[in-house]
């Protein structure tokens, strides 16, 4: 477990001051149990303080550190060196920024812009059902919650949107679409018609080609395509 690995990271760099892009290679010695965020920090500490990358919670709860590793979008905080070597069967890794928003510098993309799509589907209860007579919480059976609770675990890391084979320019994206479907399944939401209009509009759920790439890459292991299928069938 405490094995030492020597890995090579080929990282996409972008300098907003000069508008230049290039690939830079870093060789790092790291214990197998370290996460890729630890490795990036190690590069900053020992080799290059200018390399920019994003993270926040660093344990897969916030979705700030998505990057593309050897073609697969994933969270840098969740990928241990030993697992990366095993999964990709190599010691060389290409690290690219997510492609769903403009790059700010190096591996940092402007997720604020990507969030626009989540905002568009109105993730809140648009028109909550009137409160129950008792004046306290709505009653929702655990069986009802179970139908959509997996989808509520989404952290909007945009790994699914990056992997999605439908162009993100023409599609709201798997995560935003799923957030809309959650509220369609939520018994407290009464604005179903408005939600369906969003769901079935030009950039809505029918842009999905059912490649299931979203479910395949989701770091939270949510079966996103299952929810999109429910959306296509109108089974909320």
């Amino acid at each position, binding site marked *: 477990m*405490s094995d030492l690995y020597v890995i090579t990271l080929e990282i996409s760099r972008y300098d907003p001051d000069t508008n230049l892009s290039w690939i830079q290679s870093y060789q790092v010695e790291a214990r197998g149990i370290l996460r890729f965020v630890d490795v990036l920090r190690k590069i900053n500490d020992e080799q290059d303080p200018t390399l920019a990358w994003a993270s926040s919670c660093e344990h897969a709860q916030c979705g700030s550190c998505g990057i593309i590793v050897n073609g697969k979008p994933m969270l840098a905080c969740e990928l241990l060196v030993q697992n990366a070597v095993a999964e990709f069967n190599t010691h060389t890794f290409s690290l690219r920024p997510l492609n769903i928003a403009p790059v700010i510098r190096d591996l*940092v993309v402007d997720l604020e812009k990507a969030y626009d799509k989540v905002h568009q589907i109105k993730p809140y209860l648009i028109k*909550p059902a009137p409160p129950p007579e008792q004046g306290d919480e709505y009653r929702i059976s655990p069986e009802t919650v179970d139908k959509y609770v997996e989808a509520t675990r989404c952290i909007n890391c945009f790994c699914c949107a990056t992997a999605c084979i439908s162009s993100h320019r023409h599609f709201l994206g798997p995560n935003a679409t799923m957030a809309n479907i959650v509220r369609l399944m939520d018994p407290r939401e009464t604005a179903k018609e408005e939600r369906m209009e969003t769901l079935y509009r030009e950039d809505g759920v029918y842009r999905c080609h059912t490649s299931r790439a979203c479910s395949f890459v989701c770091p939270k292991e949510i079966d996103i395509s299952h929810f999109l299928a429910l959306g296509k069938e109108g089974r909320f």
Partner: protein
Amino acid sequence: MGEKLTIDSTLTCDVLVIGAGGAGLRAAARIAEKRPETKIIALTKVVSPQKSHTTTSQGGMAAVDPRDPEDRPLFHMFDTWKGSDCSADQNVIKKVCDLGWEEIVWLERHGMHFSRTEQGRVAKRPFGGHMLNFGEKKASRACFEADRTGKGIMDTVWNESLKYGVSFIGQCIATELLFNNGVCIGAVIFRYPEGKFIAMLAKATIMATGGNARMYLVTSNCRGNTGDGLAIALHAGLPLMDPEAVQFHPTGIVGPGILASEALRGEGAILRNKDEEPFMERYAPTAKDLAPRDLVSRAIMQEIREGRGLYHEGHRAQHVWLDLRHLPKEVHEKKLQEVCSFFKRFVGVDPQKDLCPVAPTAHYQMGGIPTNEFGEVQRDPNLIVPGLFACGEVAAASLHGLNRLGTNSMLELITMGSVTGDQVVAYLRDSEEPQGLPPDAGHIVFDQFSTYINSQGTESYAQIRDSLRTLMQEKVGIFRAEKPLIEAIEKLKELKEKATRIPPGTASLHANQDLWQVWELNNLITVSMTIAQGALARQESRGGHYREDYPARSDEFNYHTLVYMPRFGEIAFDKRPIDMSIFKAQGERYELFDYIERKY
């Protein structure tokens, strides 16, 4: 870089919320509900409020339904008082415990996905230090959304703020507060992507920047929890209250210290030492594994010190075991889905079959910017700062005193956020538009950034950061004593000085991660100094503050510490009395709200 740093533009609003986490956005949503025409701007360091540290909270939010046949808000008040080691403020305890259920209902009606009982109601689970009948047996009081309650709360307040048209500015830091004749009129902010300074003018400013535990080597806190709000408050001449009160959560996952929720023990997990003995029975015969966090963390460290801990090869760190093997499959797969996955992902153990390695992790600051029970910031115990409010972890009202009970943090964020929102609405009635920028606006941050950008030094950012984190862990950690604290204070002065001699990686202001981190490092050193000074001055042990040279609580210290440090190292102390209003009201069982003995 010869270029002169300047304010690029000025934005005005009614309310500026610095920190768009649970507390900040609960306040924003409350203001927007009550006064829809209010122009609110909420700032966050991360890209979206959804990515705030609040979202990592796991176990629950304590609240008693006043109609509950078994539990009562009064029991909750008592537990909070006793849990604080008799150092929380009783006016705040009463207010927050009384309001808790109303806020649960608010969250639920606004779309939070609480876990449910068979009857479809909000489900509850036991948590450390929460008990029925004044300490008799454990209470199920924590309302929860599986083990992602913080995410549920964060999503809800973010969504509601969005619904009401609150504007968000992400990827920015607030670098100094602005004042005009002692009235707070906003802040200067710096945006990461463009590298520009913006002056934000506001009638009311709410500080809700959260915690600071990144100065410890092992911490559950986000990368950005660097005490920024505390540092800018100190710069503005404001005090910090009880900075010495740092909470170490007993069960961080060995290595980086990722939180493994107390909900695990709430659901029945047991701590074991290397002989697999359930050692908490020796330290807290009644509450056992569900004793308050300060006691459990010290018990774990005691086991490790006396040779009954274990050593993790991969992470090169000592630990004890948390045993979840006997818990039902449903608990592993549904109720504790996230945390169980952390053990698998980060340390490669399967909690259904294996023992899980855990050790205490720096988790929470009980102290912070002093406020009254309405969230108004105090310059001293008798003087508020007009226009400036604070709530959430950055603030100390104080609900927690020197030790916080699990799930009381989510409760505080939401209730005090809401209370502060109400107070801001009242304040806005008579407040005036700020009249222009102070002429020296931005001078503090211009000075800080110029020092760094023009530095010719050869010090290493990483070395200073690592020295700080090791220093705080070893000398200002769970166990403290006079000599190491004095050594820590000397070393902090040295680190502060070294931090001015870090050479810049690039002089650009655009998305300069290094610049941003050096600024954060300065904040961490600043706040660390107040922690060490507060810890040195409090010659007793109380709650999360434990002095090996003064192991007992002492009535001499029945007060809150106030520390001022307008310039680094220039320390002044003051005191704030502990509010005893429940005791003084002489109501039911009031004698339990005196300075009672604390046993579990």
